[in-house]
């Protein structure tokens, strides 16, 4: 069929709850090219996390398949690294150890001990966290934890980086800093990224394409929007760019039409 790098083909997911089943996703199709940054936006509870977890291999598909680099996804693995919403660092390990746990697992036998150490520090440097390498997660701020989570994921050298509302729990300023960091890293590494968000500005500013999901149950893809903004993008200039304004307008229009408020008004 398609020759896309990441291909989500006719994916349906149902959860069995006792005797009745809940259909969360139905016949969902999405193609992502290598190096693309794609955001998924939709109302809370529509099935965004479920979709991301299917790509990660954490949730099995009921129908259809996910194909990454010509291989069907069957189980979780480091080539599809996930950054979870609530950072999910192991609290009994230091920042360094959290990253090195991943590095030692993925690169054992491929890199020497010294090379693995350098690789941990390199990825901590990418997210500007070398200064806190020996700290424990409880000793650093929420934004810093999320940075370490990103470093841990990047350190696995994943084919696709999966971000589940990575900045959802952060204040606006920290959020903006992290978004800039992610844009810088993406510009440098050109990795393929699938990011869930419910923030319209975040989606438009960071993505090449914004995928809008319909409401559940049995959610699917409503519209896909190409963001016609050249890179590198700068937050301030982008906000007044006609392409940014148009994209933002389209996404908000899509979401508003499907919000509970709009439906009761109609």
């Amino acid at each position, binding site marked *: 069929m398609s020759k896309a790098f990441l291909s989500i083909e006719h994916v349906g997911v149902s959860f069995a709850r006792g005797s009745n089943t809940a259909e969360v996703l139905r016949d969902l199709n999405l193609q992502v090219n290598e190096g693309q940054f794609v955001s998924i936006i939709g109302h809370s509870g529509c099935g965004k996390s479920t979709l991301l977890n299917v790509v*990660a*291999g*954490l949730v099995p598909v009921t129908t259809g398949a996910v194909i990454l680099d010509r291989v069907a996804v069957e*189980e*979780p*693995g*480091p080539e*599809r*690294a*996930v950054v*979870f919403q*609530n950072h*999910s*660092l*192991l*609290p*009994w390990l230091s920042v360094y150890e959290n990253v090195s*746990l*991943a590095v030692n*697992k*993925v690169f054992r036998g491929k890199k020497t001990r010294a090379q693995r150490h350098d690789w941990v520090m390199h990825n901590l440097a990418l997210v500007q966290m070398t200064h806190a390498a020996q700290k*424990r*997660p*409880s*000793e*650093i701020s929420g934004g810093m*934890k999320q940075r370490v989570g990103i470093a841990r994921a990047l350190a*696995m050298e994943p084919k696709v980086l999966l971000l589940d509302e990575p900045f959802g729990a952060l204040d606006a300023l920290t959020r903006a800093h992290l978004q800039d960091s992610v844009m810088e890293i993406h510009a440098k590494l050109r990795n393929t990224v699938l990011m869930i968000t419910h923030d319209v500005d975040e989606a438009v500013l960071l993505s090449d394409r914004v995928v809008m999901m319909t409401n559940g149950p049995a959610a699917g893809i409503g519209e896909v929007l190409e963001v016609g903004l050249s890179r590198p993008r700068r937050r301030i200039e982008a906000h007044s760019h006609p392409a940014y304004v148009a994209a933002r307008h389209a996404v908000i229009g899509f979401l508003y039409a499907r919000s509970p408020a709009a439906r009761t008004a109609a």
Partner: protein
Amino acid sequence: MSLPASQLTPALAVEAPQDAAVVLMPRDGRASALSHLGRMGRGLAELTLPPIVVLGLILGIWQLIDADGAGVPAPLTIWRDSHDLIVHPFFDHGGTDKGLFWHVATSLSRVGFGFSLAAVVGIGLGVLIGASKWAHRGLDPIFQVLRTVPPLAWLPISLAAFHQAQPSALFVIFITSIWPVIINTAVGVRNIPEDYTNVSRVLRLSPLEHFWKVLLPATTPYIFTGLRIGVGMSWLAIIASEMLLGGVGVGFFIWDQYNSSRISDIVVALVWVGLVGFALDRAVALLGRFVSRGTALG
């Protein structure tokens, strides 16, 4: 303790105005060291003084209302009757005629052995029924029933099985202290946040790596809750079972003194039992805090 000296001096000035010469030099290292010592001393006093005062009051009232010494002897009577036992805990005249230290040490070594065994087996079984749905369904109801059996009810069974006092006592310790360890470990395993399991799955940790690097650290606080309850219960059980089994041990010592009507000696032994039980509880709690430092959710 990293407060600059200048911030400490006002407090010192209020506390110790007679040290005028020191107060006049705000950045004197000696001043901050002195006030530091002063604060530590005060903290210690706040901690130890109230219980000592209350203890004194209790002993005083006890002495007053129990002056005739009939039944339970009064504190001064105990001091007179059991003077040798109190001041010589280390004597050893052979047989069961030993100082209290040796009785307590024997009881403690039994607890140490039986409880260590219970800890290892209990954590293992707890992980099993926490991690496996079928093990949980099969074993949990049985454990819930068995754990309510009083420790001493196991003694006849274990005597029938082992025929000897020593292994029977150990078995009673084991069977008494294992339940809280199993149950708390299982709860801990079932409560491991899904995020941690997901990290382990994405990294494709092997079952052994998952056990050592995720499951055990995530469960440590629960395990230590179980161990702490268990060690307390095992101390209760050893005293009771020694009373029935005889030989050296603080439980039998109490029973033996009762049979020779030396109530004063029993009171002294009770103080030992209480202090050792308290120390055991604190030791496990401290070890738990040390081992699971940083495990608190960040």
